[in-house]
C-alpha cells in the first residue's frame, strides 16, 4: 500500500492530475432542491452514449461493412450468446439515447438555461441533438437487412429533392449509380468514425462550458436574467448557498445513470435485439420498409402532407427546425427564465410531444399502406359459394379493392369501410366511384370488364346490416 501511494504521488506530481480533477469534483453548484432530479438527464445521455461506444466497438470487431457480407456477419453475431446481448444493449441504448436527449433538451428549454451566459452551450447541444439523429438513422441502416437497404434509397430520394444539387447529393448518398459495394462502407465510416468524432468534440466543448459558466440554477419566478449582473449574482449564490458537486449533487446522476444502465441491459437480456429482416436483396419485391419507432412520426408526416408541399416540408422543415435551434438563444438570450413566466414554453413542448406521439402512432398503423397480404374473403363473410355475389367477392379481392377497403374486418383501412356498402351507397354512386377513382383511389375505367363490374356491384349491394335479408357478417 505504501508503495502504491508513492507511485501515485509521483504520477500526480508529473501529470498534475489531481490539481485538475479535484477542483472539478469539488466545485460548488447551486442547491437544486425540488428540481434536483431534473438535472440528471444530461449525464444520463452521456452515460448512454458511452454505452453505445463500448457496445459499438464490440460489434465493430465482428461486423464486416461489406454490402455483400454485412448481413451474414450480423447473423453470426446474433448467434453467439453475448453477441445477442451486445446487439440488444446497442439497440435499446439507441432508443434510450433519443429519449434522454429529448428529455434533456426539454428540461433545458423549459428552465431557459439557454439564456445568458449559456447560449453557446445550447448551440453545442443543438449540434449534438442533430448528430444523434444522424447516428440513429445511420445505425439502423447498418443492420443492412431489407429495411436498412431500402432506407438508403429513401434517404437518397429525399436528398434528391434539394434544388440544384439534389441529383448529385442522392448519388453521393448511394456512393454511385445504384446501391452497391461502396454504399454500406460510406455509412459505416459515417456512423463509426466521422459522426462520433464530431460528437466527442462537441461533448468536450459542451462539458467545458458547463464548468466554465457553472450549471444553471433552478429558475426563480420574477428573477429575469440580466447579462450585466448575472455572473456576479451567480457567484454570490454559490458562495452563499452552493454545495460541492461531488458527491452531494453527483450522487443523483449516479443513481439515475445506474437505473438507466440496468434497464437497458435487462431489456437486452430479456427481450433481445431487433429481429433481422430478410437479407438486403434488391430483387425481393415483397419489402415493407419501415423506420424505427423514433422516426415513425416523420414517416407519417411525409405520408399525410399534400403532394404540392412535399419538397417544401422535406427541405425547409429540417432547415426551419435547425434555424429555430440556432436563433433561440440569440433572440431570447435574456429575460425571465421561469417557465411559469413563459407559459408558451409549456404549450410548445406539449404540442411537440403530442405531435410526435400522435404521428408516431399513425406511422405505426400506416393506414395509407395497402394491405397487400389481405386474403380473399372467406365464404362465411361472403355468404355464398357461387353465383354473382361470390364472383363479385373474388373481383373485390383480385382487383385490389380489398387492399384498401375493409369488409367485415378483412382488408385495408385506406379507404372507407365497405361492410355496409349496400346500405350506404346506391348502385349509381358505386359505379361512379369505381370508374372515376379519387385522390387516393385509382380509376378502374378501362381496367374492369362489364362482367366483373356487374359481379362486383352485386357483391357490394349485398353488404347490408342485419336483418334486412342479404347476408353480411359484422366486423370481428
Amino acid at each position, binding site marked *: 500500500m505504501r508503495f502504491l501511494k508513492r507511485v501515485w504521488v509521483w504520477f500526480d506530481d508529473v501529470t498534475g492530475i489531481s490539481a485538475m480533477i479535484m477542483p472539478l469534483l469539488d466545485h460548488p453548484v447551486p442547491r437544486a432542491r425540488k428540481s434536483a432530479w431534473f438535472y440528471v438527464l444530461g449525464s444520463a445521455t452521456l452515460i448512454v452514449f458511452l454505452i453505445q461506444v463500448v457496445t459499438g466497438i464490440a460489434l465493430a470487431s465482428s461486423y464486416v461493412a461489406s454490402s455483400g457480407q454485412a448481413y451474414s456477419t450480423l447473423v453470426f453475431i446474433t448467434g453467439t450468446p453475448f453477441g445477442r446481448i451486445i446487439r440488444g444493449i446497442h439497440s435499446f441504448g439507441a432508443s434510450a439515447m433519443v429519449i434522454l436527449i429529448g428529455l434533456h433538451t426539454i428540461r433545458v428549454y423549459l428552465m431557459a438555461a439557454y439564456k445568458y451566459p449559456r447560449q453557446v452551450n445550447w448551440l453545442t447541444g443543438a449540434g449534438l441533438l442533430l448528430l444523434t439523429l444522424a447516428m440513429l438513422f445511420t445505425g439502423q441502416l447498418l443492420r443492412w437487412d431489407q429495411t436498412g437497404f431500402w432506407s438508403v434509397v429513401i434517404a437518397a430520394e429525399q436528398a434528391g429533392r434539394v434544388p440544384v444539387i439534389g441529383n448529385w447529393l442522392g448519388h453521393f448518398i448511394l456512393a454511385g*449509380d445504384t446501391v*452497391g459495394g461502396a454504399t454500406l462502407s460510406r455509412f459505416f465510416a459515417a456512423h463509426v468514425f466521422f459522426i462520433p468524432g464530431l460528437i466527442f468534440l462537441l461533448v468536450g466543448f459542451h462539458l467545458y462550458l458547463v464548468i466554465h459558466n457553472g450549471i444553471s440554477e433552478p429558475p426563480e419566478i420574477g428573477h429575469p436574467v440580466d447579462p450585466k449582473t448575472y455572473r456576479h449574482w451567480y457567484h454570490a449564490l454559490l458562495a452563499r448557498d452552493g454545495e460541492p458537486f461531488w458527491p452531494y449533487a453527483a450522487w443523483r446522476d449516479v443513481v439515475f445513470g445506474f437505473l438507466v444502465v440496468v434497464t437497458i441491459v435487462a431489456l437486452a437480456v430479456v427481450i433481445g435485439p431487433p429481429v433481422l429482416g430478410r437479407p*438486403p436483396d434488391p430483387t425481393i419485391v415483397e*419489402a415493407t420498409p419501415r423506420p424505427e419507432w423514433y422516426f415513425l412520426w416523420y414517416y407519417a408526416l411525409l405520408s399525410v402532407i399534400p403532394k404540392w408541399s412535399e419538397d417544401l416540408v422535406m427541405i425547409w422543415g429540417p432547415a426551419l427546425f435547425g434555424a429555430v435551434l440556432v436563433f433561440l438563444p440569440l433572440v431570447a438570450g435574456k429575460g425571465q427564465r421561469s417557465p411559469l413566466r413563459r407559459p408558451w414554453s409549456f404549450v410548445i413542448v406539449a404540442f411537440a410531444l403530442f405531435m410526435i406521439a400522435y404521428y408516431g402512432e399513425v406511422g405505426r398503423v400506416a393506414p395509407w399502406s395497402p394491405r397487400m397480404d389481405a386474403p380473399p374473403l372467406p365464404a362465411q363473410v361472403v355468404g355464398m359459394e357461387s353465383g354473382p355475389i361470390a364472383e363479385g367477392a373474388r373481383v373485390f379481392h383480385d382487383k385490389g379493392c380489398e387492399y384498401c377497403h375493409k369488409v367485415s374486418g378483412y382488408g385495408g383501412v385506406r379507404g372507407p369501410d365497405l361492410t355496409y356498402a349496400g346500405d350506404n351507397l346506391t348502385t349509381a354512386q358505386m359505379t361512379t366511384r369505381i370508374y372515376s377513382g379519387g385522390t387516393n383511389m385509382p380509376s378502374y375505367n378501362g381496367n374492369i370488364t362489364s362482367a366483373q363490374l356487374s359481379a362486383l356491384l352485386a357483391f357490394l349491394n349485398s353488404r347490408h346490416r342485419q336483418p334486412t335479408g342479404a347476408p353480411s357478417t359484422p366486423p370481428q
Partner: protein
Amino acid sequence: MDENTPSTMGCQNCADKGRRKFLVRLSIALSSIGAALVAVPSFAFLLGLRKSPQIWRTVGNLDEFKIGSTVNVSFQDPSPLPWAGVTAQTAAWLRRVDDEQFIAFSMNCTHLGCPVRWLATADLFMCPCHGGVFYADGQVASGPPQRPLSQYPTRVYNGQVQILASPVPIT
C-alpha cells in the same frame, strides 16, 4: 489594429516586429499547405462518384416471356464491386408488349424510392410505403407520387431480351 492581427498579437512593444510577422506568417502558410495536401485528396476521394458505364444486361430468352404479362426480372449492375454480393442485383418489372417490344419499369416508386409490387389481377402497381398506386402503363393512379414510373431502355438482341442497366432514378 496593429495589436490584433495574428502576426502581432500579444506584441505591445516588440523590437522585432518584422521578424515576428515573418515567423507567424511562415507558420500559418506551411500549416495551411500541409493541411491542404492531406485534405484535398481525402475530400476528392470521398466526394468523387464512381461513374459506371451503362451496359446491356440479358434478362432472359425471347420465348420465355408471354405477350401481355408483367414479370419480375433481375440483372446485375454494371461493373459491380467484388464485395457487393447480393446488392449487385437490380430488379425491374418487364412486360412483353408484342413480338419484339418490351417495357421495363424501374422498381422504385417515384415518390421516395420504395419497391412497387405488380398486382396482376388488378393491373396495378402498388407501393407499400406511402400508398402510391400506378396504372399498368406506369402513370400515377393515386397517392403521393408525382411522376410516372421510370423506364429502363430495352432491346431484343440475338433472341435475348436485354435491359440497359442504368442509375437509380433520383430526380
